[in-house]
């Protein structure tokens, strides 16, 4: 560690963050700085300065990137380039992770080799969107890094107003509850929308996330414009013997399982667990609690929800139901067509920096549905409107009284 350069540590504040039981990011940077990695050394010192001054030292990036790609690189410059020249440029590359974040030791080492050669050697495994984040290199190393990555079969992720790297939960690879093949769909979408991912042409960013069941282990409903959440239509599979085993093991089925069911559609008589599946909302709770006894049904598919985003500009949103149930089988044409129709409308009517969820609210979900050719369904709403401010689009003129062709839309 670089703590002793004669008169004590150069980074006394950061050193404090090497204490304690949780693995330390400072230790990570120091480990890398130890062999004379100038970028890491200067990053430590710059960070120490931020810790002292309580302020960051990074500036907006200019337009940097690799040839032919509009996104995938976050440009960064520090505001004290004379003092910290090795990280005067310190751009990040976003690299598509293998779907599900599966690696072999071999491919991981390959990535390390490339990044040791071309960049700081620092990474995030992974970024919030899911990419491999290669954290910090200079402008002239961007293209060589990309070349090396491409030889190792790794491509860039998104940034700016494009599709961002789709992500998926571990799904059928390791989870018994996956209601569709999250990994295959996610990989397929990523491959299908390469152009949209690499060449920003939307009003703003667009994220896909694929969760295999309503537990939503990739937080799709909170963090993706299109949230694809696995579910099922038929009955929960029950193994009554295993239910009894849980009860014997001390589980309070009445209180903790039935009592927590959101629709109270379960009944436990001490011997049999009964589920009124017509009122089950597929929340997963009972299945989560008794994985050996209960399983989702076999007529599985997904609910597609639209519009989640962070607060900027109009306020945060959760995704809301767009397609209550869809079967998801390759080549997934229906969902791809849907995305394209949404992008068409958004491209035409979205304002700069307006996410699709904000557009949907601005034009009204009803109009939005018309535009993307999806039928309105009561599943899309928590409740019908409670205000009487209805925008009827047509009305009868006096002349129409006889000739009733021009029928108003809403007469039932």
């Amino acid at each position, binding site marked *: 560690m670089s703590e002793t350069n004669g008169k004590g540590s150069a980074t006394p504040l950061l050193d404090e963050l090497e204490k304690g039981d949780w693995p330390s990011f400072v230790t990570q940077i120091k480990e890398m700085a130890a062999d004379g990695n100038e970028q890491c050394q200067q990053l430590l010192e710059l960070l120490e300065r931020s810790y002292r001054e309580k302020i960051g030292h990074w500036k907006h990036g200019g337009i940097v990137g690799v040839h032919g790609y509009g996104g995938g690189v976050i440009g960064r410059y520090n505001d004290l380039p004379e003092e910290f020249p090795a990280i005067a440029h310190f751009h990040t590359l976003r690299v598509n992770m293998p779907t599900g974040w599966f690696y072999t030791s071999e491919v991981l080492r390959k990535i390390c080799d490339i990044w040791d050669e071309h960049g700081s050697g620092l990474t995030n495994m992974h970024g919030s969107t899911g990419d491999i984040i290669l954290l910090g290199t200079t402008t002239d190393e961007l293209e060589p890094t990309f070349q090396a990555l491409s030889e190792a079969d790794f491509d860039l992720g998104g940034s700016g107003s494009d599709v961002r790297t789709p992500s998926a939960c571990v799904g059928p690879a390791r989870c018994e509850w996956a209601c569709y093949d999250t990994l295959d769909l996610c990989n397929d979408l990523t491959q299908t929308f390469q152009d949209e991912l690499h060449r920003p042409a939307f009003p703003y960013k667009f994220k896909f996330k694929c969760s295999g069941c309503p537990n939503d282990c990739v937080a799709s409903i909170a963090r993706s414009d299109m949230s694809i959440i696995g579910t099922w239509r038929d009955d929960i599979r029950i193994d009554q013997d295993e239910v009894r085993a849980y009860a014997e093991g001390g589980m309070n089925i009445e209180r903790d399982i039935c009592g927590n069911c959101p629709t109270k559609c379960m009944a436990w008589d001490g011997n049999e667990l009964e589920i009124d599946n017509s009122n089950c909302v597929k929340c997963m709770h009972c299945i989560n609690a008794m994985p050996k006894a209960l399983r989702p049904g076999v007529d599985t598919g997904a609910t597609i929800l639209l519009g989640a985003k962070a607060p900027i500009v109009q306020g945060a949103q959760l995704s809301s139901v767009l397609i209550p149930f869809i079967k998801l089988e390759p080549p997934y044409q229906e969902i791809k067509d849907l995305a394209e129709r949404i992008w068409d409308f958004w491209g035409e009517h979205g304002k700069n920096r307006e996410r699709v969820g904000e557009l949907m*609210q601005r034009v009204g979900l009803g109009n939005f549905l018309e535009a993307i050719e999806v039928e309105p369904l009561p599943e899309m709403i928590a409740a019908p409107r*409670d205000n009487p401010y209805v925008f009827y689009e047509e009305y009868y003129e006096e002349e129409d009284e006889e000739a009733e062709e021009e029928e108003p839309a809403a007469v039932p």
Partner: protein
Amino acid sequence: MDTQRRTDFGPPDFRRFLPPVIKDNYGKWKYHEILKPGVMVHVGEGGDKLFTVRAGSPRLLGTKRIRKYAELADKYCGGHLRFTSRHNVEFLLTDEANIDPLIKDLHDLGHPVGGIGPAISSIVHTQGWVHCHSAATDASGVVKAVMDDLHEYFDGTKQIPGKLRIALACCLNMCGAVHCSDIAILGVHRRPPKVQQGLNKVCEIPNVIAACPTAAIRPSTVDGNPSVEIDESLCMFCANCFSVCPALPMADALNDGVSIWVGGKVSNARSEPMFSKLAVPFIENEPPRWPTVVQAVRKIVEVWADGARPYERMGDFIERIGWPKFFKLTGIEFQKEHIDDYRYAGLSYKRSAQLRH
């Protein structure tokens, strides 16, 4: 007309009109019981009993009928009676033996007795074509037709799981509890205001423009006179502009009609108060007996009466079974209009994967 003109003296003190049993037990009631439809007894800490007989009233009353009420009060209640917050009339008795004769007289007069406990009480309603300039439908007529159909739920002939409150307002001003009723009938316009000539002579144009919640009204010039024009695509027919300016009439025989709302409530019992939500976006005015409205209301009442658990109000019932099921059971077609697109619209979208499939 004379001497010193009295003003600002307020209503007569209510204490003047309380029957003796109430004066004696004021604030000291212990419990009550429902004895039969429309009849309850309140028992004081000391054992005094006050019997209440509640009768349905058309609310629009001529003085002749009011005098009849007074007669019955004299005959059975020492002259004491009251009206309720839902416009029923209540006779306040101390002699249990008077209950049945009173009920008989009320029936002879054409007044059903009921509305207490788990029942449909009278419909709170408004003026309609009888007196208001703003009405998109009649009030009393629709109410009469609907209550003719539902009176068994008032007089106890039919049992229901809990209270069901119906209200009607003849326009979006909603002079009543329409926005928080189990079932609400609401008169709606569906055509933008017609700008009348000479508007500038009767209305302040800036006020008119400011009145519109959606900024659909813009200044214009008609034949050299200042006036306004309406961007019809922005108009949602609230009639607020008409409220401030008579030269912007909204009423229109071809486009006016009625919408139906469900699931609101006021009381804090069990669930918190709730707004009513749109069930049927539009039904044409069908005087004199509004058959489509009557049928739609009955269907909703029946779906609730069949499916609700004891004490369960309409809104709680629907929340339990889910809106998709409500639309299915009632046969009401779900349309674009059901989806909110006003201020809080986003929060009415279904923001979870919790769905019945």
